[in-house]
């Protein structure tokens, strides 16, 4: 069989039978679109989260009292710095602030602008910040969610925080974070560390927790023990544990979608199988005609494999392209909430493309093989019938 004439006939047949393929193509496109959208969202968030985590310190030390996390004395910084192998020990200040007018929570993060060992993300922020202007008056940088809420109540330039002593602390809005940061910083308010302490009612000589780095990974478990020996009332959290927790979270969510995908795929294959098993008399007749005019079973099967592959491939491609547009251009409305959760602040997230081609290839195989099998088995059953029977 000459490939060019065969392909000519194949495309002619697909084109002329387009109405027959539309329903199956639409279902296929929808399945691929949903699954690949989930994959795109999941890999984009994971990348974002892991990039942020990579910039974080190796260990977080919190103080526990009666099972409750309480503020950590800054004197511990020196205690921990004395341990061999420990680097960049520093305080962290953060906490939630209840914004009464809209009953929402903001997360206040205090940063030490003059601390050299400040983490990579903060350093990046400092590059776009004119520190002198920022420090000239009490200022803050706010996430987009915070900006929208404040705007709603006509706080465009500044906002007065309520302190523990019922006094008000007016802070200027220096700028809003870029939209790309929304996944992690939508509800964030970044300000100088002393201001943050004042608003969150943390003593000057205390912090929320202490972070430190241990460059030698082999020493992690030893140093963890030494940290506990220094102060028994502490909880030590390793970056690896946080990463694992995130991985589990996304694997769990991804797993749910995988189960969903398998269920949808099985249903789809059953529909396809039934569609071709209860093959219409015209389909059956077509195969009979081809056989009657000299096509062998092999020729008919080849035609059907190519026809099915092309339909499945085009559907897959359209599904992937639509998912790409939906996630990376339209920011995946509705679906993004399933992954990000419904926040206390409305979050309009921008996903940055992070496509894992091996996942796409696996998805392609899991889609195409059942698709082709579901069509071919019934087609083969008809092709082996005597042409005089199938043409009846």
């Amino acid at each position, binding site marked *: *069989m*000459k490939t*060019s*004439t*065969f392909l*000519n*006939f194949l495309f*002619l*047949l697909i084109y*002329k*039978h387009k109405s027959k393929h539309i329903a199956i193509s639409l279902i296929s496109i929808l399945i691929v679109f949903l699954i690949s959208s989930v994959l795109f969202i999941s890999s984009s968030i994971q990348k974002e989260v892991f990039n942020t985590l990579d910039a974080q310190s190796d260990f977080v030390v919190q103080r526990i009292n009666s099972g409750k996390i309480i503020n950590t004395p800054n004197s511990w910084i020196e205690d921990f710095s004395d341990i061999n192998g420990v680097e960049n020990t520093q305080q962290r200040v953060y906490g939630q602030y209840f914004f009464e007018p809209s009953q929402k929570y903001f997360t206040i993060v205090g940063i030490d602008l003059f601390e050299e060992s400040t983490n990579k993300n903060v350093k990046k922020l400092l590059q776009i910040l004119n520190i002198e202007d920022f420090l000239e008056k009490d200022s803050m940088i706010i996430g987009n969610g915070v900006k929208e809420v404040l705007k709603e109540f006509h706080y465009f330039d500044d906002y007065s925080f309520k302190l523990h002593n019922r006094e008000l602390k007016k802070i200027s809005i220096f700028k809003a974070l870029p939209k790309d940061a929304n996944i992690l910083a939508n509800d964030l308010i970044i300000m100088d560390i002393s201001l943050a302490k004042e608003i969150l009612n943390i003593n000057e000589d205390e912090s929320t927790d202490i972070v430190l780095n241990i460059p030698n990974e082999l020493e992690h478990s030893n140093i963890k023990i030494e940290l506990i020996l220094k102060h028994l009332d502490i909880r030590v959290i390793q970056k690896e544990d946080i990463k694992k927790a995130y991985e589990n979270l996304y694997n769990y969510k991804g797993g749910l979608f995988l189960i969903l995908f398998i269920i949808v795929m099985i249903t789809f294959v059953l529909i396809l199988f039934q569609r071709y098993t209860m093959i219409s008399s015209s389909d059956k*007749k*077509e195969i*009979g*005609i*081809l*056989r*009657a*005019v*000299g*096509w*062998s*079973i*092999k*020729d008919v099967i080849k035609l059907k494999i190519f026809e099915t592959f092309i339909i499945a491939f085009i559907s897959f491609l359209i599904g992937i392209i639509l998912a790409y547009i939906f996630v990376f251009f339209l920011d995946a409305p509705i679906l993004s909430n399933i992954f990000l959760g419904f926040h206390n602040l409305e979050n309009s997230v921008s996903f940055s493309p992070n496509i894992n081609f091996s996942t796409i290839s696996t998805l392609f195989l899991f889609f195409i093989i059942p698709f082709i099998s579901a069509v071919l088995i019934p087609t083969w059953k008809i092709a*082996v019938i*005597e*042409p*005089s*029977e199938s*043409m009846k």
Partner: protein
Amino acid sequence: MIKVNNLNKVFNQNTKKEFKALKDINIEIQSSTCVILKGVSGSGKSTLLSILGALSKPSSGDIIINNDSIAKLPDLHSSAFRAKNLGFIFQSYNLFNELNVEENISIPLVPLGFSQKEINQKVQTALTLANIEHKKDETVSNLSGGEKQRTAIARALVNNPDIILCDEPTANLDNANSLKFIEVMRKLKELNKTIIIATHDPIFDKLDFVDDTINIKDGEIT
């Protein structure tokens, strides 16, 4: 030459519904002759025609066409045999309604390895021979019965086969189109084709180019 020896066809063999469609058929058809298989509906003429055309297999017996036994050929060989030696014209035309005339006629040539240029040439010849050239771009669903029949004839002729098998070719045609069909058959006979027509239409009685009439009744030659 086509030689049929002790041919039997039994449907639903060894079941309660067992039915003997053909019983010990023995016939010889010489090359370049036109033979009519005549019988009422259900007499077994279409079954015999489909076995002669390698579209179904006999339960027993043999069919020898040009010294080749085709009764038990495996699929690949029987398909190749059909493609090269036989042209079928069916009662219900059996065309692809969504394709146009030209596309339908080219279908038998696709698996044979011809280039597109060769296919176009062969299709053109068949179109002229069947007198349907003027409708070559027309979709089959828009054709009249007679035009569909001529398209089916062109498809049967496209690979220049030696044997043309026609199953009730005039059953769906009016008298004028039936006469046109007969004229095409006459032309094919002049081209030394072996023509076998299964029919019960009296229009084929006493045609000057018909060499033999084989009567079938209840699956037996009478």
